[in-house]
Each structure stands twice: as structure tokens, then as C-alpha cells.
């Protein structure tokens, strides 16, 4: 099954255009045509042509930027749709599907009926499709791309004989060489002695030929659907009370958690979408501090979000989806039940719904002598506590951006003013010299080396001062307990 104009058909489905239409893709510093509709092809345009040339040929050309990612997604959607005919459906290249209909054609009334049905349904959907049916995957590909038809069972060669050699899925280079030798059709190729072909073009050509003729097997690889973590509940009568919505969410959650348990995953981000009677949707997002699949723990966490929803004239459909899942292996039940950690995780989740999960953080050690860089602050939901905090030298309890004070010379000033307080030094301990990490760019350390002093003032405050000998100056950076 080949969709020669998949990309443009997809775009034209949503906004039909009369007349020539093309999708352009920006590649190699130029806009090139990526996919055309039939009208544009009739005007003599072709794929890969630069967009400005195409405009010159055909001034009334309408164009839109192409989106290959969405095209790919569309093809996957078509693949899922095609499983209505047979279970073995795979994806071929960028714009084709391959189906193994062995044993399933009779369900739709035979091969001819199936092809007619396929063609009719895809035509209604606005897609151009070319079908090829043969005993082998290679032959079907050749027919879909070059002749469109059905190869008689058992004799694929009869149908393939007049087709050009390009129908064998060859590389461009091999194709050109064969043309130069005068081997233009598959029939010519079959008549040529095999050893000379193998010597000249390698085993690849013969393999493709054998695959098309059924002398070498080639299987259809069906893609498995990724597990889908979404459940839905449609209600006969709209509901509006908070308790009712929570009860509905509870039912959905039971079903979702069963799915999660069978896949050994846990939900990290959940979205509860509530569809109102007026077709408007409201959704509640829940980001969890740890992957979870315990309905009893997740449900109360929704309470706050659900309470804020305006139910309007009522809600008649609930949909719960695990937007992000993480592997969560089964764990052996322990007789020492420690629910302290679970309660803390739930608290982090609840606070996270209010202020954002990334704002609840914890300290993690980092390997650096620079005081500001000797620790990381990481979101608590994405990290485990731990680390060794023992250091050789004392560090202040509070640290702040350096605040300049008046002072000269390498010894701490005897009297200085800091934050409008006159302070006089009673004792000072130091210096502790810390050199900047030259391999990292840091604005704050542009002034070079720092000699840190632990200073006790007569007024009681114990401060962390530093002197920069290379660009003389004194600063306060921290305060001890």
C-alpha cells in the first residue's frame, strides 16, 4: 500500500485547496518542494524542485511548510486503522504500509473485495493510495509503486516482467548502472546469467530479485502498539458535585492502576480531563513526587485540583491519562512498614500542585572548592537525599552574594561598616586561600584568588570575609552561627 502524496493529502484533508498545492521543506539553505498534489504534478512540478523555480513555472501554486514528524504520526495512525483488515501490518519506508493478509482476506469477502474496500475508504478520507497485491513483499512493493495491480498467485514473475528494474528497491547507483548496461526491465534481469550479475553488482541485487520472486523469504514485521495509559468514563447524566467527580475519578484510577501494574510502571504525571455538557473541557494535572500506582494514594491528591474546577452545566465524561510513566518494578512486601517516606512524598506532591514541583528542593554535594559551587540544589522529586558533607574547613551557615566593605591590605580591617553597622574585629582566623576554577567561566571569580577569613567582631557577629589580593578589595560573603 503506497501513499504517493501522503503529506500533502494530510494537510489538504483539514483545509482543501483548489488548484496546485505543494508542501515545502527547508533543507540545505533552500526551500524545496516536499510533496505535491495532483494538480501541481500536472503543471510539471516535481519533488525536490526548489520552491522559487516552482513559483516561476506555476505562479498560482499554494504552499505550506511541511511537517515530517506529523506525517510520520499520521502514517502510524493509518497503520493502526489498517489492523481492521489483518493483524500483521507494518510500515514501509516513509509513506507506505505493508500488510500480510494471508488467512484474513476472506473475512472481508476475498482479495478483490478487500482492495475495493480499502480503496473506497481511503478515497473517502481524501488519500491517494496505490495498492499492490502479490505473493511476496518485494513483488507487492513493485506493483504498488510501478504498476498497481494484483500479481497472479504462484507466478509473480508474470506481473513483474515488464516493470523497470527500479521496482526491485535498488540503490540509485545500481539502478543507473543497470540502465547503462541495457537491463531496463525485470524481465531483462531474469534472463541475464546470475553469476555475472553477482560479480558486477554484489549479492544485494540478487537478494532483492529473489525476494521479489519469492525465492528468499521476507517477513512483514508488525509494529506493536505502545501501551496506552488512558481510561474514560462516559456518564448518562451530567454530574457537578465534587464528591461525584472524585468517585468517578476513583473508578477510573482503579482501572488505570491495573494497567500500570501489569506493565510494571508507575505514573509520574496524570491528567484528568473533564468534558462538560457544553463540549468544553477542563483538565486537572497532577505531577507526582514519585512514580505511583496505588489508587488509594493518588486519589486524595486530586482533591485540590478537582475542587477548583468550574463544572458549568455538568460533566458528562471523565478521562484519566497517565501522561508520563516511569518503570516501577514490583517490590516485595516488607513486614517493617515505613509509611513515613510515603507520607512525605504525598506532601511534596500536594505542595507541588500549589507552587510547582521544581520549587521543592534539597541539597546535594558537588565536587568543588568554590564555596558557592560545593553543593547543588536539586528538585526533591527527582533526587535522593544523601551525600557526605564533612569538610576540612568551617563554612558559614548563611551565604550571600559578596558585599563590599572598606579595607586595605592583606590583614582584615580593624573596623569596618557592614549593612550600616559599625563593627570592630576582635579575632580573625585565616587566611584560607581558594583559587578560582579557571576551566569554568564565572563572573564572580573574575577578580582572581580569594583569601577567606573567619572574623569575630566585638559586636558578636561572626562573619566570613575575603580579600582579593589580585584586585585589592574586601568583601563579606557569609555569616557563621
Amino acid at each position, binding site marked *: 500500500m503506497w501513499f504517493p502524496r501522503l503529506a500533502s493529502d494530510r494537510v489538504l484533508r483539514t483545509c482543501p485547496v483548489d488548484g496546485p498545492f505543494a508542501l515545502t521543506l527547508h533543507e540545505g539553505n533552500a526551500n524545496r518542494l516536499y510533496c505535491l498534489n495532483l494538480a501541481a504534478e500536472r503543471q510539471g512540478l516535481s519533488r525536490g524542485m526548489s520552491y522559487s523555480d516552482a513559483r516561476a513555472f506555476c505562479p498560482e501554486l499554494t504552499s505550506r511548510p511541511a511537517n515530517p514528524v506529523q506525517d510520520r504520526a499520521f502514517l502510524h495512525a493509518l497503520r493502526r486503522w489498517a489492523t481492521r483488515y489483518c493483524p500483521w501490518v507494518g510500515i514501509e519506508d516513509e509513506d507506505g504500509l505493508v500488510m500480510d493478509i494471508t488467512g484474513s482476506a476472506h473475512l472481508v469477502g476475498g482479495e478483490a473485495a478487500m482492495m475495493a474496500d480499502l480503496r473506497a475508504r481511503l478515497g473517502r478520507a481524501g488519500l491517494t493510495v496505490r495498492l499492490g497485491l502479490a505473493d511476496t513483499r518485494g513483488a507487492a512493493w513493485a506493483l504498488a509503486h510501478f504498476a498497481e495491480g494484483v500479481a497472479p498467485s504462484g507466478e509473480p514473475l508474470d506481473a513483474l516482467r515488464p516493470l523497470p528494474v527500479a521496482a526491485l528497491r535498488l540503490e540509485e547507483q545500481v539502478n543507473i548502472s543497470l540502465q547503462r548496461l541495457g537491463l531496463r526491465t525485470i524481465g531483462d534481469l531474469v534472463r541475464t546469467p546470475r553469476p555475472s550479475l553477482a560479480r558486477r553488482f554484489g549479492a544485494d541485487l540478487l537478494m532483492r530479485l529473489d525476494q521479489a520472486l519469492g525465492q528468499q523469504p521476507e517477513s512483514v514485521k508488525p509494529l506493536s502498539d505502545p501501551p496506552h495509559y488512558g481510561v474514560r468514563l462516559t456518564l448518562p447524566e451530567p454530574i457537578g458535585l465534587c464528591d461525584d467527580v472524585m468517585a468517578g475519578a476513583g473508578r477510573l484510577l482503579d482501572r488505570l492502576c491495573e494497567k500500570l501494574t501489569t506493565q510494571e510502571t508507575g505514573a509520574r504525571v496524570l491528567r484528568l480531563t473533564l468534558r462538560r455538557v457544553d463540549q468544553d473541557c477542563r483538565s486537572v494535572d497532577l505531577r507526582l513526587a514519585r512514580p505511583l500506582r496505588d489508587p488509594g494514594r493518588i486519589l486524595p491528591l486530586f482533591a485540590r485540583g478537582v475542587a477548583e474546577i468550574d463544572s458549568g452545566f455538568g460533566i458528562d465524561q471523565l478521562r484519566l491519562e497517565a501522561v508520563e510513566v516511569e518503570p516501577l518494578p514490583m517490590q516485595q512486601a516488607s513486614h517493617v512498614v515505613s509509611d513515613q517516606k510515603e*507520607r512525605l512524598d504525598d*506532601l511534596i506532591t500536594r505542595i507541588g500542585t*500549589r*507552587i510547582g514541583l521544581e*520549587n*521543592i*528542593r534539597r541539597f546535594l554535594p558537588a565536587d568543588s572548592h568554590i564555596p558557592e559551587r560545593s553543593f547543588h540544589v536539586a528538585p526533591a522529586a527527582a533526587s535522593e537525599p544523601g551525600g557526605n558533607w564533612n569538610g576540612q574547613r568551617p563554612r*558559614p551557615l548563611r551565604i550571600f552574594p559578596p558585599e563590599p566593605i572598606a579595607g586595605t591590605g592583606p590583614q582584615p580591617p580593624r573596623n569596618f561598616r557592614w549593612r550600616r553597622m559599625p563593627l570592630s574585629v576582635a579575632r580573625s582566623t585565616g587566611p584560607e586561600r581558594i583559587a578560582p576554577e579557571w576551566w569554568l567561566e564565572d563572573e564572580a571569580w573574575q577578580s582572581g584568588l580569594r583569601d577567606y577569613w573567619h572574623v569575630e567582631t566585638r559586636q558578636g557577629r561572626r562573619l566570613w570575609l575575603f580579600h582579593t589580593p589580585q584586585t585589592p578589595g574586601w568583601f563579606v560573603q557569609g555569616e557563621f552561627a
Partner: protein
Amino acid sequence: MSTDPLPSYPLRTGRVHEACGPAAPAFAAMLAACIPGEVMWVQEGWQGEGLHPRGLNDFFDPARLLLVRVRDQNEALAVAEEALRDGSVALVVMELSRPLNLTKGRRLQLAAQAGGSTGLCLIPEGMGSNAAETRWHCTPVLDPAAAGEDSTLQHWSLIKNKSGTLGAWHVRWNKTTHHLHVVSPAGERPGSADMPG
């Protein structure tokens, strides 16, 4: 030097207390060391002053600490109330910049009672709330006797107490044993009078 506990210390659980003065963060760190369990520290995001975990390590293990960054004081109070009511953190420290009215203070107090954990507001001087259980004023003091880097002598005065008497003490933190020592009362300190400055 004695290791006698202070009369109202460690602070009564299930209540919200207040600490002010320059050594209030140290007071909070020492309190966290006395209470087993997780500690939540709520700080407004715009404040430039941060805690240094290596400095905290002299008091308690920074792995027990959860830092919460909030936008403004209302958010800080909401988060603190939620955490206090839940009770899964043993101590909630919140740095406040504006005075609390009686309603807000009382809400925190009720939340702490429901959850059974301790709350501590670090407040600017003179901005106490009537709802607080105790209020402490903490200042670091120069220790003339101990020469060295690890002098942690502080003057704590209990300036409000709903269920007890007021008082003032000199305390010192022992970094190796992680214990609070009460030093002899302020007036009788040797050398305190004849130190210049």
C-alpha cells in the same frame, strides 16, 4: 558550663514559635538538630541569602532538609500550613518578611496542633504575632574565653511565652557532640565586663 536543658527548650511540639534577631537561623538549625525527622525550610525566592549545607552540617545532616522556594509570603504560609497539618515533617521553618495578623498566626497554630509538628517563624525584629507560643530573641556574642574558629556563644532571650516564664541564657553549641550547652547567666560571665568594646 552545664548541659541542663533550657526550661522551654526544645520547643513544644504541635505549636508555632517565633525567633528573631541576627542569630535566628542558627537557632532554627540548632532546633532542627534536637528534633528527629525531616525539616522543611520555606524561603521566599527573591531573598539572596541562602543556607550553606556544609555550614548546616555542623548542626544536622542536610539530607534531612527540604528547601521550599515560594513567590511571596501568602504562598509561604499556605505551604507551611499544609506541611504542618500533614505532620510528616517534624519541623517547618519559614522565613517571614512581613508581620502576621492574628488570623494567619492562629491558622498556623491550629494546623500545627492538628499535625503535631513544630513550626518556627524567623521574623524581623519587632514583628511578632500574638498567636505565637514562644518568641526568642537570639544574638551572637563574642566569646572572650574560647579562642578558635568554633565559638558559637549566643545570647538567647525568651521574650514571649504563653505557658511559662521568660528568661535569658547564654548557650553554646558543641559541634562534635551536637549538643547545646547552657553557659552561666549573662551577668555573671567572667570577663564580660572587662572586655573592651
